[in-house]
């Protein structure tokens, strides 16, 4: 059998699978799935940015009401994280791969997106953990400085105790966040990047 005969056999196949297609139901489901996907994205963004925005307002409110200036640092850190995520999402959404583009363009766009995601997670310490840790650290120090103390404990001991506790809790929780992010990079994003690069190489070979 030569290629033309093979081609003929290929082209002569019908729908293949037996299927009863209800176009109305299908259309309804396609719309519903699309809507579900968009809702999922919306809530993911709202959750992440919303939490940061909510905390910013809360810390600002407490800071002004109770005249605790150090809470402003915490509010500032939350504002920075929320704004960073918002701007980043907005910028990346504009660069999203378009499924009706040629395959090469779509793979290139996906690769840019995956690389950016890897960059974000690899640098999570700088844009997420460090600002929050700094804001929380300033708040803890000021708290230790201003808190009324009993005679038995010196101010230095209190500051040392609070800072030590803070460093321990903060260090452990931030290390966990950092580790989870790096795990996601290793487990999901790096393999995806390799896959996309090999697809791109497949187009070039």
């Amino acid at each position: 059998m030569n290629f033309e005969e093979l081609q003929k056999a290929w082209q002569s196949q019908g729908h293949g699978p037996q299927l009863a297609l209800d176009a109305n139901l299908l259309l309804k489901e396609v719309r519903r799935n699309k809507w579900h996907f968009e809702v999922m994205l919306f809530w993911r963004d709202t959750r992440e940015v919303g939490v940061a925005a909510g905390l910013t307002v809360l810390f600002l409110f407490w800071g002004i009401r109770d005249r605790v200036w150090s809470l402003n640092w915490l509010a500032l850190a939350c504002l920075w994280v929320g704004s960073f995520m918002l701007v980043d999402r907005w910028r990346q959404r504009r660069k999203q791969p378009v499924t009706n583009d040629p395959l090469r363009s779509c793979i290139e766009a996906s690769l840019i997106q995956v690389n950016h995601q890897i960059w974000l997670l690899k640098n999570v310490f700088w844009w997420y953990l460090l600002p929050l840790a700094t804001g929380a650290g300033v708040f803890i120090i000021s708290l230790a400085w201003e808190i009324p103390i009993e005679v038995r404990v010196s101010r230095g001991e209190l500051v040392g105790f609070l800072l030590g506790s803070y460093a321990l809790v903060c260090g452990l929780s931030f290390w966990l966040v950092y580790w989870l992010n790096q795990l996601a990079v290793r487990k999901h994003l790096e393999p995806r990047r390799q896959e996309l690069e090999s697809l791109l190489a497949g187009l070039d070979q």
Partner: protein
Amino acid sequence: MNTEEQEAIFRRWLNDHLRLMLKLVRASAATPEDQDDLFQEVLVNVWSSIRAFRGEAKETTWIYRVAFNTTMAWRRGEWRRRKGHERFLKLDTSPQAQPSHVDSPPEREIVERLYAAIRQLPKVDASLALMHLDGLSYQEMAEVLGISENYIGVKLNRIRKQLADQLKGANDEL
């Protein structure tokens, strides 16, 4: 474009190009569950792409692009993990379920072996093999993939050889 127009185009494409979409899905996923998942993902992306369709590309070229881009990004079991998803299509892709369009059992067997062979190819090569078998021109293939026509010829020679190796026994020559 309003929703009614989008819906009308979707229905027409479904009617005209369902066979094409199913072939691409079957060539990209082996199990019926995966094929069902992928098919639904392709449909969602085809639906979403309609608003961007201006008629500059041929409908088939457009659908090939959407379907290939979807298969490249598709992850096994992704749809099944999503909540609230209701199956609207049950695909029975077993050889027994083949209708009589494929004339004889030997031809049916060849087509099944072809699907299996295509699934063994690297994804880009599989895309080219599918378009080649469907009889697309080099220019159309280049438009779908976004590579130059010169590459296509070279690649197709290699793919034909690979397919020949995998179908050895069923065919004397390709």
